[in-house]
Structures are given as C-alpha cells and as structure tokens.
C-alpha cells in the first residue's frame, strides 16, 4: 500500500480554529498518511513557541456560551475589554473538563509523528515574525512549495 498524502493549509490563529489542522494532521499520521501543513497569515500564530490563542464570541453568533448568554447577552457586551480573555479561559476550562487535548499537546504529537510544517515566508515577512519566535524544525516556503506536495496529495484541506 502506497502512503496516502494529506495537505492542509492553516490560515486561522484562534483557539477554536487551531484544532482542525492539528487534530486532522495528527490523526492522519496515526493512520499512516504522509502529512504536511502550510501555515499562512494568522495560522502562523499556531507555530509560536509560546502559544497564547484566544477565542472570541464577537462576530461569532454560532458560539455557545454559558448560561445561554449567546441568546440574551448583547453582542456589544462581547466587545468589552477583557471579555476575550474571560471567554478563552472558560473555553480552555471546558475543554480540559471534557478531555479535549490542548493545542500544545496535539502540536507535539504532530511533531513526534513527523508532520511537516511549513511557514509561509511571505506572511512571516509581512507580519515581521522572526524564526526564533517559532518552534524548531519547521520549514519556510511559498505557494510553489505548497503545490509540490499538495499536487500529489490524496486529500487537500483549507482551514
């Protein structure tokens, strides 16, 4: 059986949207897929050594909130200072209680499973990131680098 390939583009840098790329990449590796994730724009936040990911209820009417707040709490209230941190802390607590892995844990599992992680050079430069801010072992490349692998992939996802 030839090895299947999974290519993922990770473009989002929030706590909730950090999950799909790392869950899928780690699981695919466990299933024997050769996996690459290309991090671009806000997805670059997921490569930081020290993660500080947040989730925001603002502009996200689909996000369930405690005490049914998503039904009655005024949207403008979710824009109050500190709200993002409070919601993020609550989300983290809930995830822990439900046995959901942390992003750090999933990312470590991906590294262990030799998932290749590529940082988009253009957006690294755009946002003035320095390689020392990112975890070790990642590579840098552009769109053509992505297609080299993605063009031969069996599954290609944009997150």
């Amino acid at each position: 059986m030839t090895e299947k390939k999974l290519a993922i583009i990770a473009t989002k840098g929030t706590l909730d949207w950090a999950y799909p790329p790392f869950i899928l990449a780690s699981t695919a590796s466990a299933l024997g897929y050769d996996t690459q994730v290309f991090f671009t724009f806000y997805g670059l936040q997921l490569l930081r050594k020290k993660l500080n990911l947040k989730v925001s209820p603002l502009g996200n009417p689909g996000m369930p909130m405690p005490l049914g707040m998503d039904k009655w709490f005024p949207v403008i209230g979710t824009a109050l200072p500190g709200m993002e941190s409070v919601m993020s802390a609550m989300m983290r607590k809930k995830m822990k209680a439900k046995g959901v892995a942390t992003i750090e844990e999933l990312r470590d599992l991906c590294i262990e499973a030799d998932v290749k992680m590529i940082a988009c050079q253009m957006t690294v430069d755009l946002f003035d990131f320095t390689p020392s801010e990112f975890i070790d072992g990642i590579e840098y490349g552009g769109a053509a680098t992505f297609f080299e692998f993605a063009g031969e992939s069996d599954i290609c996802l944009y997150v």
Partner: protein
Amino acid sequence: MTGFDQELDASGLNCPLPILRAKKTLSSMESGKILRIIATDPGSVKDFEAFSKQTGNELLESAEDGGKYMFLLRKG
C-alpha cells in the same frame, strides 16, 4: 473474554486522543500482540473501526459496558 498482552486506559480522553495513544502503544508492540483499550468517548466506537480498517490492525472485539468502551486490537 479474549486475553491481551497490553492495556491502554484512555478513559476521559476525547477525540482524537484515544486513537493517537493507541497508535503510540501499538508501535511499541510486536506484530500479533493484542492491545486492550478502555475509553469513555462514544465516538471511539466508530473511530476504532475506521482505524482498524485503515491501518491493518485487526479489531477483534468492541464492547460497551455502562458508558465504558472496550476494544481489542491485534497489531498487524
């Protein structure tokens, strides 16, 4: 119940951790050996079936008992 060589308790863990832990444990085992997995994630029932089909580790048994799920995998 069938015997087993190694056991993995994935109770309290949610998707995809039971699968990832199982994979890790299997990789340290010899071919033909049997791994028993305990999980509480209801999604793990379908996931272990799918894992077995895709990896060639045979799912010998899948059972549920009062919210606990038990799987027997033979390393392929």
